[in-house]
């Protein structure tokens, strides 16, 4: 009896990896009446039976799985990627050029828009850098509020990563769970700053606003409820055969390669390098917080997932400690070089009014100098490099974009893998095109 069969490739990758370090895939045959037969895996290392011309396939720039306007030109041999040529620049807006024509506080809105999933974290990073350039110290309450802001922002960014990666790999439920929690964080931001996505929360020398009454209670509620969602996603994915099969042994970077390619953040730590800017070049008193740096061992997509999920938990720990130590006091520095005078004095006192006018119209002037201040953004090491010539506008404002450098290794990571794995590897980099193209 002749039966029409169709071969379905199913990854049962928990079984292990083959000699070339790729997950073992077991093909299955499904007959018409639904009987499933598992075939022997094809012998590896032999020449392919059919030789044909290579095919070019173009992913993006408008494609949901490229997480923005990224274009990948792939040269395929059958289904295997022989070469990958990434094209970027579709979202280039010239942020660095515009920054040279703006006062320091006027640049902060641009930092929202570059890595838009981490906008408040960028605001914090910018202010830390600018304050070092001005030689200004901020009060302790401001420092702790910035830690809270940066860690909430890390949680948002990782949640978006988790949700979108699950969508890319065919799982819809964790996307809904993670985006629901993300809404909670955005509600917190909204009640603090008034904006959800483009926060512009900091100023040079302080914050745009102190937290409102009762805000810490909302945050405590979030800290209590949020780990349950992380645990649910963890239970759903970490030991899920499909998830493990589609992520293990893909896009492997060894520790030495990862360092040499300049990878940072979860990408670097998944490869087994325990480098975290918060620990190694601390800022915002991160050395006084008790948290762990998760480190992977294989450097594949699965380890990057594990690292990011663990970072969600560690961020919650940091948030708890920051809430417990949140001191009272002012949020803005009293350094008159960067801060506006109080409004009632500006309206009643001539000198304060002149001071207010000069601060707004001319802008604060840093001394001649340059700083590069790296911070641990959710994507990796983000650094703002300022060069000042003593005027109110920076000579050079450079963003060291972590996902730009991470993405530059994509050709190395995808070559030799299957076309469907390109999506998984690209998702694991956690790119934000706003930051890459700037």
């Amino acid at each position, binding site marked *: 009896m002749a039966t029409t069969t169709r071969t379905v490739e199913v990854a049962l990758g928990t079984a292990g990896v083959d000699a070339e370090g790729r997950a073992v895939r077991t093909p299955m045959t499904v007959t018409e009446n639904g009987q499933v037969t598992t075939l022997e895996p094809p012998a590896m290392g032999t020449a392919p039976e059919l030789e044909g*011309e*290579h*095919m*070019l396939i*173009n992913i993006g720039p408008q494609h949901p799985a490229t997480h923005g306007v990224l274009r990948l*030109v792939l*040269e395929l041999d059958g289904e295997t990627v*022989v*070469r990958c*040529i990434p*094209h*970027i*620049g579709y979202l*280039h807006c010239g942020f*660095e*050029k*515009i920054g040279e024509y703006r006062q320091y506080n006027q640049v902060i809105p641009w930092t929202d828009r570059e890595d838009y999933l981490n906008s408040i974290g960028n605001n914090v990073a910018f202010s830390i850098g600018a304050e*070092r*350039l001005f*030689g200004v*110290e901020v009060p302790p309450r401001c420092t702790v509020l910035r830690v809270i802001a940066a860690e909430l922002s890390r949680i948002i960014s990782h949640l978006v990563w988790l949700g979108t990666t699950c969508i890319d790999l065919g799982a819809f439920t964790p996307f809904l769970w993670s985006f629901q929690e993300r809404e909670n964080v955005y509600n917190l931001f909204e009640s603090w700053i008034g904006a959800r996505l483009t926060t512009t929360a900091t100023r040079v020398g302080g914050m745009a606003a102190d937290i409102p009454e009762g805000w810490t209670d909302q945050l405590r509620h979030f800290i209590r409820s949020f780990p349950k969602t992380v645990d649910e996603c963890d239970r759903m994915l970490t030991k899920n055969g499909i998830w493990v099969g589609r992520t293990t042994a893909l896009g492997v970077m060894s*520790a030495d*390669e990862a*360092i*040499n*390619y*300049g990878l940072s953040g979860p990408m670097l730590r998944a490869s*087994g*390098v*325990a*480098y975290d800017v918060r*620990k*190694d*070049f*601390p800022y*915002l008193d*991160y*050395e006084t917080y008790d948290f762990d740096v998760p*480190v992977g*061992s294989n450097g594949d997509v699965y380890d990057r997932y594990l690292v990011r999920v663990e970072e969600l938990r560690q961020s919650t720990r940091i948030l708890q400690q920051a809430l417990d130590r949140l001191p009272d006091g002012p949020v803005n520095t009293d350094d008159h070089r960067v801060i506006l005078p109080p409004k009632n004095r500006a309206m009643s006192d001539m000198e304060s009014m002149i001071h207010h006018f000069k601060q707004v119209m001319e802008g604060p002037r840093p*001394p001649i*100098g*340059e*700083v*590069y201040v*790296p911070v641990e953004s959710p994507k990796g090491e983000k650094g703002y*490099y300022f*060069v000042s*010539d003593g*005027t109110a506008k920076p*000579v*050079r404002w*450079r963003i*060291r974009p972590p996902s730009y*450098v991470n*993405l*530059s*290794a994509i050709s*190395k990571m995808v070559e030799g893998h299957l076309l469907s794995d390109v999506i998984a590897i690209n998702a694991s980099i956690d790119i934000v095109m706003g930051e890459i193209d*700037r």
Partner: protein
Amino acid sequence: MTVPFSPVLPGSANPGAPAPATPRNLPQKGGEPNPTAALIAQTFPALFVRSEVIWGDTNVYVHPHGVSEVVRWLHDDPSQQYDYLSDVTAVEFRDAEQPLEVVWHLRSLPHRRFIRLKASLDKRAPLVVDSVWPIYKGADWLERECYDMFGITFTGHPDLRRILMWESYREGYPLRKDFPLRGRFSRAEQLRQALSITTEGRYSMEELSVAQAFEDLPEDMRRRLAGGERTGE
């Protein structure tokens, strides 16, 4: 699966060193320099120009023709181990007399050190400097961006093309100070150029191995490829 695994720990080269802390009250000038700066001056007296400490970071100026030699030493010398390239960028000052500076931010993970290497390029001569790509693969896109934005040629870079701007971009180098914020061309000319771009022609035939078989392709496919269309359709 029990595989012995030991992560790479930053700061492991000097275990007795104090734990890093948030820098406070940094002086604008002066302070303790990175010990590497003095060693560069000692090892490369002909290439070293000067060094300074600014807001706690050490700047080392070297001659542009010796950059790859110094960086190679910083990367390979067991007492230095600057294994991580954070950033490659350039700075052009508003004062037209001042030279253009190329900046490398290097980091030693084992020693937990940071150094900023600089090379001054005379703007009247061609802007050429060594590529550090043979040492750090991560320099690939960073140097391409620097070329794209400033027009600096990195000798030894394998694939120095524009990266953020498109390849037929003719207005110059956007981050140079003589480049106006709105661009050089009029809006009408910018629009005309944008409309005349072959959007599918953004990769060159030569960078794809299908180009080697170009002559064997059917005539209509060759015509479409030469016009910038993609294959496989």
